[in-house]
């Protein structure tokens, strides 16, 4: 991959020889890359190329089979999971029975609160003002996704790991994701987002990280 623009700041995230095996079959890797503050990197790859697994390894949910993940130059270990990483997976991690506000309050309790923002503000910036107390069950899939995006705004994580953030969103919603990413990058945050290429981050030209499904090993 292209080497990033020379930046003086230390890499927010660095992967060295990172690989993951399941049942001794490689899922991805070995990968070497670095992510600097202010960057948004797009992980591209077909189904089964290990995008989701990569995000899980980077977040610390899965232990890498080989290589290491450095966060601000320090190894990422389960014992020292930091406030700096926020993961948005296929499963949004929000409760359908509760209201957006209740869900966000729980997320803040668990992950901390970024200064200068309140749950109401966050809901407003994802276009959900007026829905604060409606149980999520009554919202559409796209609106639920927006609640999950509001969570990212609230928690003080510098690194966002977003798995298919554009799925289930209409054109306006995708623009919203891009806007949030831009603001986050300008603030000095960074994001890794996966996409199978249908629609992607359009502002500027983001770096791309190509994942390939491991070749059939019988060859």
């Amino acid at each position, binding site marked *: 991959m292209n080497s990033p623009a020379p930046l003086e700041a230390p890499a927010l995230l660095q992967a060295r020889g990172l690989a993951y095996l399941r*049942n*001794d079959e490689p899922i991805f890797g070995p990968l070497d890359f670095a992510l600097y503050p202010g960057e948004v990197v797009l992980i591209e790859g077909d189904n089964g190329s290990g995008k989701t697994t990569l995000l899980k390894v980077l977040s610390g949910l899965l232990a890498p089979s080989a290589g290491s993940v450095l966060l601000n130059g320090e190894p990422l270990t389960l014992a020292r999971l930091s406030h700096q990483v926020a993961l948005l997976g296929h499963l949004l991690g929000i409760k359908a029975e509760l209201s957006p506000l209740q869900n966000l309050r729980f997320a803040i309790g668990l992950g901390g609160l970024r200064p200068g923002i309140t749950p109401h503000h966050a809901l407003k910036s994802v276009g959900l003002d007026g829905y604060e107390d409606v149980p999520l069950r009554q919202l559409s899939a796209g609106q639920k996704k927006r609640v999950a995006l509001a969570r990212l705004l609230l928690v003080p994580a510098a690194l966002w790991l977003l798995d298919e953030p554009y799925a289930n969103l209409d054109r306006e919603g995708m623009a919203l994701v891009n806007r949030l990413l831009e603001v986050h990058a300008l603030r000095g945050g960074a994001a890794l987002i996966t996409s199978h290429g249908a629609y992607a981050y359009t502002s500027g030209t983001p770096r791309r990280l190509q994942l390939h499904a491991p070749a059939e090993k019988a060859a």
Partner: protein
Amino acid sequence: MNPLVLWFHKLGSPPYFYRLAGRLLPWLWGLAAIGIAAGLYGGLVLAPPDYQQSDAFRIIYIHVPSAWMSLFIYFFMAVNGFIALVWRIKLSEILAMAAAPVGAAFTFICLATGSLWGKPMWGTWWTWDARLTSELVLLFLYLGVIGLYHAIEDRRQAARAAAFLALIGIVNLPIVHFSVKWWNTLHQGSTVKLFGPSLIDSRMLWPLLIMAVATKFAFAASLLSRARVDLLELESGKDWARQIALAEETSA
């Protein structure tokens, strides 16, 4: 490097282990067969009948070594499980999981022969005696480990989860034994002792010891032959496993 450490590293390499186990297997089976034959000959033919239980006591030559093995194998499984969890050594995962069915088999033998012994001695097939009850719980622990191992898709994750359960079980086992014993005194269960004080005659004792050793060999043989197959299955993507598959085909 220390030659012993080096040997351990080599042992951890699947193809090396596979070949070594393959070479050891005939010897282990042979020793087990000879030992079992000698032990049973000593127990069934040479040993004099017990003065209280007459010839029925001869069941101990199967029952007692099996009971010892059921605990020994559980311990073996837990130790390997611990190693697998802490150091993530593949061979330990495989050994722990290969030991579980063998342990369950010996536990089952122990329960079945205990029952066959109980019928003439106590007049019932089953009694809630402390030892038998603990053994029954042990069987369920084994079945839990095996069940958990087979319920999880990913083999290595399954092995780690089941190894963790085995470790919980080994904490539980003494507690079960202690509690069942306490419960037994509470309910004044049957007090017929399986071990009479008469078991001091050396002609009665040595076949028992031989059987204890022979069952260890049988366990080792079964363990290695299971571990070999599991290793082959787990490493089926690797070159050495393919070569074995192809070599088998041409010879078959």
